[in-house]
């Protein structure tokens, strides 16, 4: 019997094969999560239907999806870029906060600057905040003093405290409010938003960052060196590539990406510096990058998927009375399925 055309096409094309694998994993995870929901006495089909309706069928819902994707894309690049050199960056959380912090500093220091000056400044500061925060573990690793996994992990928890310290102290807003935060930033510092939604220019920044990541690694001469280090550090060194320098640069660039995410949240969404900026974007970014195997297209798809899942979490809470946190189970199941495949296709 002749092979169905679709199956043949899938068999022949590696890109379609990869997509088919992603799809299979997601469907399997949805099935397991449905079982979990059933056990908890909820209606999974209803939940899934509601989610689809809220996110894909509804314009505002879809826009919220993109809002969630924005920091996820950047957090994933923050992990993926150093990973190409074999470096493990689990410090996205901290780098995000420091980017937000430094960007806020700029906005608060120069509130009267015009937008065309302030916006770029704030963006650069956001990048710099994350970059410097990640450069610390980078230098420690370059000098072979401390492993970057541990160093980035530890610094994760210091950064939010720096933010808290600032908004409880020197940057405390004079307005009385339920919780402490910085004063609102001048409009000039705010990222423009689109179409009556919360989508802000940060989305463009994150897409640009993803594109930059792809171009840098795949198309430039620096990318060749970076991938050489990731593929065979000894050979790279023997061939004259300055490995220690690249370690610091790569981690700094990754951190800068996460910093941009923080800047985006603070300049695009909140309009001020507050606590709780990140519900785990850094870690989610790690998992997105890891699931995508560092591939740019995969990052885009996975970020979209994770954004949908977090939206599902909101829907579940509202319509089914299930705490939002339960959606983490779905995330975990997806990861488990991928991790449990021996020598899986995701690095």
């Amino acid at each position, binding site marked *: 019997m002749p092979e169905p055309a679709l199956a043949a096409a899938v068999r022949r094309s590696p890109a379609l094969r990869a997509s088919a694998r992603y799809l299979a994993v997601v469907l399997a995870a949805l099935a397991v999560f449905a079982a979990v929901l059933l056990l908890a006495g909820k209606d999974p089909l209803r939940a899934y239907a509601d989610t689809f309706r809220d996110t894909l069928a509804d314009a505002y819902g879809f826009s919220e999806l993109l809002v969630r994707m924005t920091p996820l894309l950047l957090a994933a690049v923050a992990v993926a870029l150093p990973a190409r050199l074999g470096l493990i960056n689990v410090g996205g959380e901290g780098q995000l906060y420091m980017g937000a912090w430094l960007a806020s500093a700029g906005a608060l220091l120069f509130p009267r600057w015009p937008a065309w000056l302030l916006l770029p400044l704030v963006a650069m500061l956001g990048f710099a905040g994350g970059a410097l925060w990640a450069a610390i573990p980078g230098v420690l690793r370059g000098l072979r003093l401390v492993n970057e996994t541990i160093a980035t992990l530890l610094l994760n928890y210091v950064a939010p405290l720096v933010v808290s310290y600032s908004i409880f102290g020197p940057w405390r807003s004079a307005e009385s409010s339920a919780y402490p935060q910085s004063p609102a930033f001048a409009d000039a510092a705010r990222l423009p938003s689109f179409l009556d939604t919360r989508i802000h220019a940060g989305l463009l920044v994150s897409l640009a960052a993803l594109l930059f990541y792809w171009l840098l690694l795949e198309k430039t001469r620096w990318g060749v*060196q970076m*991938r*050489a280090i990731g593929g065979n550090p000894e*050979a790279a060194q023997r061939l*004259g590539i*300055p490995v220690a320098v690249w370690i610091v640069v790569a981690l700094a660039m990754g951190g800068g990406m996460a910093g941009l995410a923080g800047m985006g949240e603070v300049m695009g969404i909140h309009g001020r510096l507050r606590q709780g900026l990140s519900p785990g974007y850094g870690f989610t970014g790690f998992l997105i990058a890891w699931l995508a195997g560092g591939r740019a297209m995969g990052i885009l798809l996975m970020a979209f998927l994770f954004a949908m899942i977090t939206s599902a979490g909101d829907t579940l809470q509202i319509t089914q009375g299930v705490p939002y946190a339960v959606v983490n189970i779905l995330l975990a199941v997806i990861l488990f399925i991928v991790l449990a495949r021996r020598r899986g296709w995701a690095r």
Partner: protein
Amino acid sequence: MGPRDAGTSPGAPPLLEARSIRKRYGPVLANDGVDLTLCRGEVHALLGENGAGKSTLSKILYGFIRPDAGELLWNGERVELGSPRDARRLGIGMVFQSFMLIPALSVLENIALFLGDLPAIVRGEAVGRRIRALGDRFGLHVDPSAPVRQLSVGDQQKVEILKLLLAEARVLVFDEPTKVLAPHEVRALVRVFGALKAEGYAILFITHKLREALACADRITVLRQGRVAGRPRPDQADAATLVKLMFGDREPGPSVAAEAAPSRPPGAGPIFELRGAWSRASGSETPLRGLDLTIRAGEIVGVAGVSGSGQKELGDLILGLRPLSAGTRWFDGEDASSWSIARLRERGVAFVPEDPLAMAAVPGMSVRENLVLGTGRRYWKGATVDWPRLESAMTASFGALAFPVPPLDRPAFALSGGNLQRMVIARELAHAPRLVVALYPTRGLDVRSAVSVRELLQRARDTGTGVLLISEDLDELAELSDRLLVLYGGAVTGEFARGGWTAEEVGHLMTGSKGAALA
């Protein structure tokens, strides 16, 4: 304890016997009809140069690999060794070149881990007592509470031996045990052999160090190219005999030697020099001691030596990977002591390694991308690489070397060993390097690839490049070297012009024995 009670009477069968062992690896016959007998209370030395088949034989004796033909007998009975566990159960213990010790744990803990009868609650004193008792009996004095990583290599070896003794081994196989020992530690080990021998243990002492073999062996077997070349009696043999058996009666120099040496521009200074170079070593590395080395344009300088004499360290020092702890490095008359690897490469230092996949290529990247690595700034075009120009330059290089161009889009790991080496060579020679450092360049290659590699080293020399050839193959060195240096223990112990040496002389220097023949 000890196998003495099993009787060492002349009529007793040997403890372990190997008969007609044959093992083939592809085109190479690593062991070809080898017989070996290990008797109680005897030290049996197994000699041979690198590649003679010693390590294959020892792996067979220890159950790591199975022979294609032949049999093993334990106490006269045929046995099959499916794994090292079988060997251990019989009582065959092996002391490897790289120790299976856990550095962070103490001597006592390392040994206790291996004991089959360790109780659930570890009584440190009891085990410590056993260790000390054995240590006193055989001269293996170690402090049981010392962490292994703090021990000298010689003491670590003692721990390995104690481990085997406590685990009731009766045959002890030592694979090149003195390679990493200092002279006084070697003497201590010989004393340990004596003590073990007296208690009836059988010892197989695999080595290439003739003096030591002669000093302590009761029996000697010499392997050459997979076969038993001879079984000289220790009381009748001397270093010269052994060297002859190990290296054969080879005439130095090939037919190629008849060619006139290429003319050098008059007054040309050396391309590369090391003056009084010292380097530090960590772990099992060999420190370089006050090396003087000169390489001129249009000459191949060969470096002979048994493994562990400092070859890799020398290569890394020249390439800039290893810093000089004392002395200077000169390139084309300039002080290059503190040049970076990139700068050395830029000025024309090229590297042909023994293991291209591990040392000179990135397995996951395409051939094309591998070709641009290490070419410095030559093919940069703004933010990208000028791929067309690279391709044409590399294709030209392949062509000049008469190599087929490999498919550029395939990943490097998909190439065969020979093709990978060719790729690396084409890249390294593409820009007319001034100096080529070749470190075991033909190791692991098939015969045809090896021949072509040698040919192009010669061709490089003919075009005025200086070549440093570090090799373990004396035939290769004889064929290619315009000058031959012998490296031993991190220092140069001999220098010869083409045609001015015999395998015997060099063999002596390589194994650190200055035989009567040289006196």
